[in-house]
């Protein structure tokens, strides 16, 4: 083995081992536990076969969590991508204080989600109701996080506010790859800005659109911290995402094996979803 190869192995193997030890191995263990009735701490447990899986399909709370998660993930993904594309276009234009604005728009990304969640908790709980009280806006007088029909929108707002920052950076990088002579040619041909966007800008950043959609969707499907910081899944089970359900049921509820089965199914769904999304969006990239 050449010396160079040893160096490459030294670079990759530790990461592979760590990844296997802390990610793949626990995931396999999870599959194993999902076939038992282990509660998370007792010294003994028994094999129960696919009983946990059968019960998952009978559990309305699981269905409820999937409905919330999909509703949340689809809306958040669309909003994040639309907003971050618009912001990226603005930040890519020749405007004054461009670097300052770029820094400002990136700021939410460096704050921890839990801290953002607690800040917005205060804003929704005290600032907005107080302002609404003074201005006489009836429907905002109470905390929207405490309303089972509106709480999820509160979470969407915070998630969008926070994740727009990261996706904007990716779009900005994409926009800078477009050669400026294309725009010059377009303006010579008398194309409007609108036409320019749809025929030059958007097709040329297609790979960035794909990766942003896939990443945002996957992240939003796994939503956890926002919910824990703002509502804990409430009111009732109105904002209980799948990740929150698995965590709360598995650890505090003492149904480790049952929620492991839920996690295995969830993993499968995410893999399938990401695969479909990639296939579809990459095909679109080719066509454009």
């Amino acid at each position, binding site marked *: 083995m050449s010396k160079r190869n040893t160096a490459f192995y030294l670079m990759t193997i530790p990461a592979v081992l760590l990844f296997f030890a802390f990610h793949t191995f626990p995931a396999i263990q999870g599959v194993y536990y999902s076939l038992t009735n282990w509660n998370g*701490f007792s010294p003994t447990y028994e094999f129960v076969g696919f009983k946990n899986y059968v019960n998952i399909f009978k559990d309305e709370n699981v269905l409820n969590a999937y409905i919330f998660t999909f509703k949340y993930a689809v809306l958040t993904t669309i909003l994040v991508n639309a907003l971050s594309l618009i912001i990226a276009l603005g930040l890519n234009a020749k405007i004054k204080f461009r670097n300052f604005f770029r820094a400002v728009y990136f700021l939410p990304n460096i704050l921890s989600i839990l801290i953002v969640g607690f800040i917005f908790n205060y804003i929704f709980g005290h600032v907005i109701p107080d302002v609404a009280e003074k201005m006489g806006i009836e429907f905002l007088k109470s905390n929207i996080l405490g309303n089972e029909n509106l709480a999820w929108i509160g979470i969407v707002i915070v998630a969008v506010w926070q994740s727009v920052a990261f996706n904007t950076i990716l779009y900005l990088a994409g926009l800078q790859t477009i050669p400026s002579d294309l725009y010059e040619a377009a303006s010579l041909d008398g194309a409007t800005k609108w036409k320019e966007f749809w025929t030059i800008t958007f097709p040329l950043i297609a790979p960035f659109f794909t990766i942003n959609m896939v990443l945002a969707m996957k992240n939003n499907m796994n939503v956890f911290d926002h919910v824990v910081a703002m509502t804990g899944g409430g009111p009732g089970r109105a904002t209980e995402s799948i990740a929150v359900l698995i965590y709360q049921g598995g650890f505090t509820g003492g149904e480790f094996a049952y929620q492991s089965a839920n996690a295995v199914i969830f993993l499968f769904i995410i893999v399938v979803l990401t695969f479909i999304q990639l296939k579809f969006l990459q095909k679109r990239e080719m066509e454009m």
Partner: protein
Amino acid sequence: MKKLISLMLAALLPASLLAGCSSSESGKVKIEFFQNKPEAKSTFEKLAEKFEKENPTIDVVVSTPPDAETVLKTRIAKNDVPDVIGSGLNATFVELAKNGIFADFSNDPQLQNIQPAYVDMIKNLTGLKEVHGIPYSANANGVLYNKALFKELGLTVPKTWDEFIAVADKIKAAGKIPFYHTYKDSWTTLIPFNALASNLPGDQFFKDRESGKTTFRQAYREVAEKQLKLLEYGTKDNFGKGYSDGNAAFAKGESVMYLQGIWAIPEIKKANPNIEIGTFPFPASNDTAKNKLVSGVDTLLTLSAATQHKEESKKFIDFLLKPENVKFYIDEQKVFSSVKGVTQDDPSVSDLKESFQKGLLVDFADHYIPSAMKVDKIVQGFLQKKDMDEYLKTLDTEWNKVQERK
């Protein structure tokens, strides 16, 4: 390649070595007292110091790790059980007791000095004949009230449900807020739930439910109705505010009463040191003899079944149970004693004394409900939708589902 593998192994080795650390000292016997209340750390340390002075050959180490329940479980999994354990009477204790981790105290003479209600709570929750711990201190959940505002409005402490509602009506008529509900935090919905469920259907209900003699639909309608009634006397934003908002608001006098446990009193006093707080048992029914105080074991003391230092450890437990030491503990911690004859005289909770003296105590109902049911979420959801039939149906179906999954 071989070199590479040995390198990897060398990197992994130290991690496995760390697990092997242990300590032993010569001359003195070292016992470990493991307890779960971070608030009580310094109090127990002071008591341990006093014990060491009386018993110079014994060295007591008090350990209070964060997230103590998880730490205890992992240590038991490693077969490293602490000698003396102070724990709440919770699901973890019950599970561990069933697995024979703790010593049996059934024949211990100390149990004679304990309020029988608390000893029964341990038996009921574990479902065992043996008693695997000695109740040490107790907490309570009731109605906190602002004494100054009560005087100003000419109100007296209500003894029955009707009087309770009459007091709330008077407060409302005077333009003030009777209760500051903090239902954004789902666990706070359990305070009135426990008071009503423990008193009206009672804890016997859960045994009957398990054997299929009754259902929530049959027994819980009154609980549901009264839960909804209390909602009428709240603020404009019952679901928008949480526990810490409630403590601050009650401290400022925004509401006259506050449905909480006595554990909130130190927090409220932090926000307003001058507030005069009183506490009375939640009057769930109109039969005063039936209105018991919801009170649970805050800390119980137990021994590892496998301890090497049984005699020394038992000596420490006996020392903690001496009336003067119990008194010292409850004065510092503002909790109640489960040892007979030791009373909590703090004026903020003195109204509860009668219930303790008469033994009119009942355990938290939610201790009997499997935690996988997430009853706090069910109650929170019900208070939003206000649909009693759906609520009772959900309680029954969730109960059945969790039983089936076992």
